[in-house]
């Protein structure tokens, strides 16, 4: 009986309704004070005046945002012109993160699909194998990548030894190295949601498509992909968002020419050259970008939910 099953087999219950506020209190306490309040404080700091040895002067100022978007000459009295320096760093970060996402998708989708179509018993093992590297310290992974890709590193040694190339490939300190690093950092985030979507996919639909004369690739494009699209989008977001604010991969693999948002922000808080309000403003801009992406994504997921 459907009604009875829903009421007796449900997992949401109100058994502990009486204690709900006590149960939530610790997380509210910790997260409000140490996550929400700091973010609010960061917003405040982005409107303060910088102090030259780091820190702030408690005086309202739009200087940080002004510096981000406009150039007023060396002495600050020229007419404002749009300053592309920082906008370009953001733009390059978006571009890098986007390419890393595409790379992850191109390799992650077939991998996720392949795993999801294994017999049920070996599936968990494949997922396990894919997730192991994610559990390894991100710093160690990035350092390993740097070690492997070095000009005199094992990869070049191997390729020269096999005769594929004569001179070492210069990968470190290029965009490619950053993208490989980002790909390496966040690949499981691409594979897992796609895997989950494909696993739920009803393969009778593919059979129906094949029965109606669709080729394999037509089936993939017209039937499978639309069905697993929420998983694909979730995977892309989960790779793109952390890539955008990544610090380690661009810093260790990209070198100075491949500066990304993360390094720009980090620089403002290190040593004496820092500009805290500017760092806070750049963080706010990054946070706003990410929240917009997440909101669009949430709306899209809800719309897709309605369609079902």
């Amino acid at each position, binding site marked *: 009986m459907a009604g009875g099953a829903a009421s007796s087999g449900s997992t949401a219950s109100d058994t502990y309704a009486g204690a709900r506020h006590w149960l939530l209190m610790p*997380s509210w306490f910790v997260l409000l004070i140490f996550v929400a309040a700091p973010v609010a404080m960061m917003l405040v700091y982005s409107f303060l005046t910088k102090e030259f040895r780091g820190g702030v002067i408690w005086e309202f100022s739009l200087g940080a945002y002004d510096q981000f978007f406009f150039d007023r000459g060396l002495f600050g009295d020229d007419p404002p012109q749009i300053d592309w320096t920082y906008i370009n760093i953001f733009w390059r970060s978006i571009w890098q993160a986007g390419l890393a996402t595409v790379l992850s998708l191109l390799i992650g989708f077939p991998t996720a699909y392949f795993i999801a179509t294994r017999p049920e018993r070996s599936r968990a093992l494949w997922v396990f194998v894919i997730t192991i590297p994610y559990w390894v310290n991100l710093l160690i992974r990035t350092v*390993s990548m740097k070690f492997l890709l070095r000009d005199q590193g094992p990869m070049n040694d191997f390729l020269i030894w096999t005769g594929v190339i004569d001179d070492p490939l210069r990968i470190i300190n290029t965009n490619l190295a950053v993208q490989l690093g980002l790909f390496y950092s966040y690949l499981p985030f691409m594979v897992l949601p796609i895997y989950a979507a494909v696993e739920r996919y009803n393969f009778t639909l593919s059979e129906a498509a094949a029965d109606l004369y669709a080729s394999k690739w037509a089936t993939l494009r017209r039937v499978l992909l639309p069905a697993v699209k929420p998983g694909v989008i979730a995977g892309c977001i989960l790779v793109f968002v952390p890539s955008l604010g990544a610090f380690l991969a661009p810093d260790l693999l990209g070198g100075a020419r491949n500066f990304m948002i993360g390094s720009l922000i980090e620089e403002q808080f290190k040593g004496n050259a820092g500009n805290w309000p500017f760092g806070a403003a750049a963080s706010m801009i990054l946070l706003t970008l990410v929240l917009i992406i997440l909101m669009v994504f949430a709306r899209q997921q809800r719309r897709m939910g309605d369609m079902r």
Partner: protein
Amino acid sequence: MSARTDVKTYPGFFAITLLCMVILYAPLMVVTVYSFNASPSITVWEGLSLRWYADVFTGPESDKFKQAAFNSFSIALIAATLATAIATASATAIVRAGRFRLRLPSLGLITLPILVPEIVLAVATLIFFNSIGFTRGYMTILVAHIAFCIPFAYLPIQARMQGIENTYEQAAMDLYATKAQAFRQVLLPLMMPGIISGFLLAFIVSLDDFIITNFVKGAGVETLPTAIFGSVKQGIKPNIMAISTMLLSLSIMMVTISYFLSKWDNTK
């Protein structure tokens, strides 16, 4: 079924999966292999040796690494324990306490540390401690870790709790157990795999963290990631590869435990 008739199989997907595995594992394997290199140079192979492992424990940098390891593990242990306890209580309120006005806001607050980019959270936490005049050091790292570990502990616990039908508690109460008894004797044991997974995930995330720690640590207080980063900035040395290999083995060990936990379904 042959590949020609099986609609599930796509040519080339297996090859890409293998490529994916190679990209994922090659760097880790290379570092593992080179950590056993006898040579002081990272470019030349001079045969197997454990000298760099010995160097980690007795070499010139050993004190720094020991202190960093102590900081890392003690922070991870405390942060993961507290985050797991807080997350378990929150999951009970969100999954087992009916619908209420603060339910979705609470869920949003709990997942906030995952939604906010790590570098932004790092900046915010630094600014916060600075503005309240809190001296940066061990405590600031610990507090920040507790906060951002909560969602990582929470998600597996919530997933597990949602998988347990509420009829078990109802049956317990039907059989004269009070709510507290039903929680302790029925719900909590059934939740165990989720709680342990949540703890392990929080532990690894804390151990793994570089960015936030780098921002909120005081001068002279290092964790393993910040110590390794500082060292790597001057070039990759063999002792770093030995440390990396040890940490890597630890992670693999923990993920293996968590893998078997996920297969341990004590409701069946």
